[in-house]
């Protein structure tokens, strides 16, 4: 008999639809900065695939007194923190004359990079560094993990990518540099282990010995890599450099872990089991882990991809079994449009759960939500026609850099979305960045 997966007993972790984490008492593990004056800003970027039915997303009027649309309605509890941003385009998603197909992957890759990805099935993937990774370079100085990449879909599906574009262009929104796409981790347990290790409650002495061993192994490996690098030719060197870059990143993490010493305690909670079979449980579990990652200050930057572009996922729990991508190509069929809207609303309801969790979680003088700047949206507006203009975007971050929420703002036609990304970095106090991809300047966000 085939067994799907191994895991810690479900009892110790999850029960029922609520998927509530057995959270430890967190006072004991409130990180060092709690005492400091200003808690750090956290950043997260959340993408939903296959576009949104825009007339059920975009409020009819601008300013503060707009009426919430059906897709935004689940976010009512966060209305005062929310900026609905209309009119922003991702011009780099547009195909060049010789490019065949590939609207979805181009749009997804452009979303946080502002670059036009190279059409290739695999050889010489190329895009640009994504905004989360720019932030991670800065914020990573203070946290063990520079960033966390989270997804709700596995990369193992075969044949889901159009042939001219490699699957990396569908499976991630995060690029470490122009040639290194970062995998989105979709296994809750792996994220847990990444945050808190896999060795359970080991005493500090043993942990120190383990760290010394890791250090020795990395030193030995670094020596190997350098030797090998000298013998390799051009493109192979790129791969080895990725490896070396990864070694350095882990060394940095280990140094930070040592410097921060015992202030970081491993939470006393059961590790997550495999992937919950019901999507909403899966989403909530990941949301809980993302909250935990910020709460323990293991990282301050998260990229979260709710589904792959062209995802064939169905959501039977909301009452129908149609594949997501298929219904978004509704071609005017009211039934399919209706189903797409239901999926869009389902996603904002789940977002509302995540935001609610952040609001419930104390952080310094307020909550995690008070100290977070979160971008939610899609890389396509109209999924039926594959439009990259007037993208669906909502920003949550009341008070960050003086941002004032509770408004719907429309920008002039053709304003690059990358301008928003650049502005987000400013607001999060990332030292000045000149441009991201095709940005042309900063965006004016409403301030108090």
């Amino acid at each position: 008999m085939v067994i799907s997966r191994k895991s810690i007993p479900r009892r110790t972790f999850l029960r029922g639809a609520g998927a509530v984490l057995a959270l430890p008492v967190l006072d004991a593990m409130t990180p060092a900065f709690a005492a400091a004056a200003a808690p750090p800003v956290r950043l997260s970027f959340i993408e939903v695939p296959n576009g949104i039915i825009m007339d059920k997303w975009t409020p009819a009027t601008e300013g503060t007194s707009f009426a919430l649309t059906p897709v935004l309605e689940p976010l009512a509890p966060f209305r005062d923190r929310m900026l609905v941003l209309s009119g922003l385009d991702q011009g780099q998603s547009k195909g060049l004359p010789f490019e065949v197909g590939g609207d979805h992957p181009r749009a997804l890759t452009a979303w946080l990079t502002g670059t036009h990805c190279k059409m290739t099935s695999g050889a010489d993937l190329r895009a640009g560094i994504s905004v989360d990774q720019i932030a991670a370079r800065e914020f990573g100085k203070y946290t063990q993990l520079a960033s966390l990449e989270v997804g709700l879909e596995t990369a193992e599906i075969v044949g889901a990518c159009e042939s001219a574009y490699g699957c990396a262009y569908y499976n991630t929104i995060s690029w470490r540099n122009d040639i290194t796409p970062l995998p989105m981790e979709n296994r809750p347990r792996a994220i847990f282990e990444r945050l808190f290790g896999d060795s359970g409650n080991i005493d500090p002495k043993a942990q120190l010995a383990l760290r010394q061993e890791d250090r020795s192994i990395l030193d030995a490996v670094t020596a190997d890599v350098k030797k090998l690098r000298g013998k390799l030719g051009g493109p192979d060197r790129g791969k080895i450099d990725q490896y070396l870059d990864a070694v350095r990143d882990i060394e940095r993490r280990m140094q930070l872990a040592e410097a921060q010493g015992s202030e970081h305690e491993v939470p006393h909670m059961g590790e997550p089991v495999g992937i919950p079979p019901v999507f909403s449980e899966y989403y909530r579990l990941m949301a809980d882990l993302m909250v935990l990652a910020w709460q323990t200050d293991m990282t301050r930057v998260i990229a979260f991809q709710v589904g792959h572009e062209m995802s064939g996922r169905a959501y039977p729990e909301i009452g129908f079994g149609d594949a997501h991508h298929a219904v978004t190509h509704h071609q005017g069929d009211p039934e399919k449009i209706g189903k797409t809207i239901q999926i869009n609303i389902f996603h904002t309801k789940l977002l509302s759960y995540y935001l609610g969790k952040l609001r419930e979680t104390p952080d310094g003088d307020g909550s995690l939500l008070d100290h977070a700047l979160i971008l939610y949206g899609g890389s396509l507006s109209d999924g039926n026609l594959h439009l990259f203009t007037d993208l669906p975007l909502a920003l949550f971050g009341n008070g960050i850099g003086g941002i004032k929420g509770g408004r719907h703002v429309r920008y002039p036609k053709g304003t690059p979305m990358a301008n928003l990304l650049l502005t987000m970095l400013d607001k999060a106090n990332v030292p000045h960045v000149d441009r991201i991809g095709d940005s042309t300047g900063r965006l004016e966000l409403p301030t108090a």
Partner: protein
Amino acid sequence: MIRTRALASISMVLLAAVLMPAATLPAENSASPAVAHGPFDPHQVWETFKIYCMDCHIGPRAPAGLNLQTLDFDNLDQHGATWEKLLIKLRNREMPPVGTPRPDAATYQDIVTAIDAERDRLAQVRPNPGRPTLHRLNRSEYANAIRDLLAIEIDVADLLPADDTGYGFDNIGDVLNVSPLLLERYLAAGRKISRLAVGDSAMHDTVQTYVIPHGLSQTDRMSEAMPLGSRGGTAVRHLFPVDGEYEISVGLQRGRYDAFMGMERERKLDLRLDDQRLKLFTIAADARAGALEYGAHEDPDAHLKIRLPVKAGTRTLVATFVKDTVMPEGILGGREAAFFEGVGSVTVAGPFNVQGPGATPSRERIFLCHPAAASEEQPCAEKILASLVHRAFRRPVGADDLPPLLALYRQGAQNGGFDAGVKLALEKILVSPEFIFRVELDAPEAAPGSVHRVSDIELASRLSFFLWSSIPDAELLQVAERGELHDPSVLEHQVRRMLADPRSQALVANFSGQWLFLRNIARIQPDPAAFPAFDENLRLAMAQETQLLVESTLREDRSIGDLLNTDYTFLNQRLAEHYGIEGVYGNEFRRIALKDQNRRGLLGQASILAVTSYPNRTAPTIRGKWVLEQLLGSPPPPPPPNVPSLKEDAGTKALTMRQRMEEHRANPSCAACHRLMDPVGFSLENFDGLGRWRDQAAPGTGPIDASGVLPDGTRFDGPAGLRNVLMSKREQFVEAFTERLLTYALGRGLEEYDRPVVRRITRDAAADGQKWSSIVLGIVRSAPFQMRRVSDGDL
């Protein structure tokens, strides 16, 4: 498949491939029936083009950017991508367009043959083998390497993230990147694995749970591993890392809202280890059945546990019910998947009170010596580590390999003794770049852009990763180290030996798992409203059937073409019932002769029909595209952007899917592709979204019309009709298969210069019955498999 993107990068075609002495060319060894042709006559080709093509394809603004005047008719290596594209257009008779003067059949054939033959000749004389990028082991290669190196089975999906795919496969060097996340996982995996393999006595206790999917019906004896007279339950292979005590517990299956299933009556649970009964538990009936919520009472499975000493090693744990006469039924919970009673999980916690490392195959493999005195320790460690490095790095051990490992050994030994030292050094081996990557080096003095044979050592790894998705075994490595592997007869012997070895199952699982999309079976989400009968048993059975079918063709060395037309398949009871085939009982698979014409070959397999469907209905276009792309190697181009709406009038709803699609095809911008894809897909409409036969799509819609016409006028009807069409294109199928297998074997996307190689392998194989072995050997003997191009800078 060959990418059209090459067209956009004509300028990147290699300018100078260094001339190789003809005698060293691998293809010279194959007894190829060369294409019948005289010396290539550029003038003749030019004249033909002048008559039929030059009206349009001339000057800088020629259609499709094809200006025939820019081509060098004396050197078909130049602008190879354009020549290949031309060949396809001419072979398919797509050009010149219908309605303009066209050559007669003989002229078409002559010109195709002439270009083909000249490209083939040039590929022999001036091979361009391409250059695979430094290749990181993917997840399954890593797991197999660990198995072959250390004799332990790991659940790699638990340890490492999934790999990206390119060109349809997950073993493409270009897309196998390294990120900090991945290296972190390699470090963690290295630690876990070395601890398990060495049998670390200082190991902390851990908990491992094996979860059984909710939708798995457990109404029968589940497999051969289960005792006779048992019903349901599961068998798991668990690695007990050391001699010590372990606690084994069983969880009962739960339904929606976590209520326990099957509490209406008393049940007996049989817990067994390596076929010895550990305990027979009684689970009392509970009147509150179905209402049991956790926390309210003691769970009815709380007592299903036992703590006992177990010797180290991989052992089979069985938890099953003693068969009773009541047949429980699945409960359909609204629109959710079905839930069934049975065993829900098996958990092993431990080790506690460790006695020692015990005797395991892993330790036997690792510890070639056991130092009796302190003075023997260092030499013994050297011996052990040299052997591990040799296998793990797939090459002879060098002088500078051991010192850093011995330093680690000493560090580990200082803290925890001899075994701990070996463990730490092993940990390092498992994250070393030479284990993680398949390293191939250019000769230091080789000229940039020149081509050379890979070394025998490198060839051994190319072979083992192609056929086994793993490292070479001792024999292969020995042959290579003796410098004999490039010898054609030695090479052929090794290939045949490796194909016959059970490890070649990896070729079936990984290659056909991706080529045919079988891997997606694990992730289909049939809508319970549309497919109430679907359960996990069917999911498992569908995947198993096709795996067995493809494997049987490999083991019996059948023709690849047979895959389209096998008159047998492998069924268990669940799948036989799905197909409406009687007389198959039990969960074991067996070979069954097929009487139904429509079930024959790949196109009758439920797995393939299911992965090319939507969750709630069939998708003729997806099926059509799958056939064109995966079986015939001619994918339709992606839909144009801003596809116009089908029809927005109210009448849309009343049309059948076929009528709606036909409307689709009336639109010229859609028709170009859909008139090809749709008839193919519609001919399979009698198979529903899970591959079950049906006469009508829905009650009252009348019999399904599965007839169709291809653009060339061929009429056909139903799956059997489609199969006949495909059988008539057997050559194309085999060529497409070869393209896919070559991509997989090389771990890189194919380029225009590989095209003649594919044609030659296909031609050679045709002379040998298109057998698996003839195509595999054709690939192994080809220039791209045996040679590589020296890097010419940063390209």
